[in-house]
């Protein structure tokens, strides 16, 4: 969608699915459809002339007239972009209205009265609606979903494969893998026997709730299972996006700076638990564990902390116990709710 940073939804690919995307119509309705090919995009280059090719066969429109405008945008960085539009006269009031011009560039000031419309909506309201849907989906099935976030290279995937090996077969586990490219991580997960679905975000820097909604439809995790969502390696963007998970767990490896919680406070504030990974390397590093924990608690006084080593096994028992406890809580909550609505269906 965006040609500047490319962070558009059009590039998201869910593994195994035909490429799917949404169209929004002028009347507000939305429809989704799938494509077989990857490399499409609706890119409107600045400077293009768009001509509305409405069928005019047979009957004449009394007021059909087109105007071509050329005007300038001044970007915040000072760049001036000049482009042209064509608007046909079918515009609602038959007025000469120019969509491309803000008040500062108005060609015909005073033609229409401007007015204020109250909105008062959260910017991420749509994402939050998808997240609520996911949360209900997961709660109904007693699934404990954890959103794992970290910078790239913190050892998330190794931690995951170790965790899956320990949880299975007593607990069923599946994984949603978010990466910009490749299915390498999903392949590593599948080697453990767990089901995994890869979401490639293209140039997108985070997973959002609607991607998870679509992934849940395909994955259909089992009742009372554990779902890991491995977010894109990035300590900034995923903090803002609720996916409908029970909680975020941030993985910070001791080979990174101990001041990361202060540098990326949003993420450490959004997380319930911080896993300090690769602690087996501490003897070789200048990493002050306690200081790192203090920094994390500055931004999030209630954050839980567990030092672990995914490769050597330190702290893994504690982490697995924590996961089991959360999974049991999710299961019991499901049973309690089910018992309330239909006493027979609870078991």
């Amino acid at each position, binding site marked *: *969608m*965006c040609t*500047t*940073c490319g*962070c*558009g939804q059009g590039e998201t690919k869910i593994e195994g699915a035909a490429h799917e995307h949404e169209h*929004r119509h002028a*009347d*507000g309705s939305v429809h989704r459809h799938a494509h077989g090919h990857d490399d499409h995009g609706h890119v*409107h280059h*600045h400077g293009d002339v*768009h001509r509305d090719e409405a069928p005019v066969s047979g009957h004449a429109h009394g007021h059909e007239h087109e105007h071509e405008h050329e005007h300038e*945008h001044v*970007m*915040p*960085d000072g760049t001036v972009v000049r482009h042209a539009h064509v608007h046909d006269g079918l*515009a*609602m*009031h038959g*007025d000469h*209205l120019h*969509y*491309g*011009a*803000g*008040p*500062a560039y108005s060609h015909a000031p005073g033609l*229409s*009265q*401007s*007015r*204020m*419309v*109250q*909105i*008062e*909506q*959260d*910017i*991420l309201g*749509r994402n939050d609606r998808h997240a609520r849907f996911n949360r209900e989906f997961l709660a109904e099935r007693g699934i404990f979903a954890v959103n794992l976030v970290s910078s790239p290279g913190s050892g998330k995937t190794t931690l995951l494969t170790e965790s899956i090996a320990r949880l299975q077969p007593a607990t069923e586990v599946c994984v949603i893998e978010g990466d910009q490219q490749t299915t390498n991580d999903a392949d590593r997960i599948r080697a453990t026997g767990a089901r995994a679905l890869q979401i490639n975000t293209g140039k997108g*820097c*985070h997973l*959002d709730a609607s991607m998870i909604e679509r992934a849940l439809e395909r994955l259909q995790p089992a009742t009372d299972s554990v779902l890991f969502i491995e977010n894109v390696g*990035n300590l*900034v*963007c995923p*903090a*803002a*996006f609720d996916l409908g998970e029970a909680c975020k767990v941030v993985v910070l490896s001791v080979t990174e700076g101990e001041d990361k*919680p*202060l540098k990326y*406070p*949003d993420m450490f*504030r959004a997380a319930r638990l911080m896993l300090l990974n690769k602690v087996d390397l501490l003897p070789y590093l200048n990493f002050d564990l306690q200081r790192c924990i203090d*920094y994390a*608690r*500055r*931004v999030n*006084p209630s954050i839980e902390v567990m030092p672990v080593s995914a490769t050597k096994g330190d702290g893994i028992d504690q982490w697995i116990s924590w996961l089991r406890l959360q999974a049991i809580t999710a299961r019991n909550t499901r049973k309690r709710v089910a018992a309330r609505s239909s006493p027979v269906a609870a078991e």
Partner: protein
Amino acid sequence: MKLPMHEMSLAESILQVVEETARSSAADQVRAVRLEIGALSHVERDSLRFCFDAVTRGTLADGARLEIDATPGRAWCMPCSESVELSRLGDACPRCGSYQLQVTQGEEMRVKDIEVA
């Protein structure tokens, strides 16, 4: 500008809200969009402005003025038992130096209103 930019997603979400509202109020053009962005929210303003200009091109909101009202950050300090100002996450209480703070204000990310024609 700081990368990566989830501000692009935010800008797209803002545009969705703005377009829906503009259409339902039969507006032909959006002249201004006013946001409320908390000082402690996940937003890099310059990135957001840049992204907003990019995603609105060719839409009803093309060229719209983006106004950002900043809500200052506030937190409840446990030791002080009082509401205090907080300019950044990770800062201490300006009164007692404690980090036992619960953020109470400053994380807002809202579209407040739009000016349409």
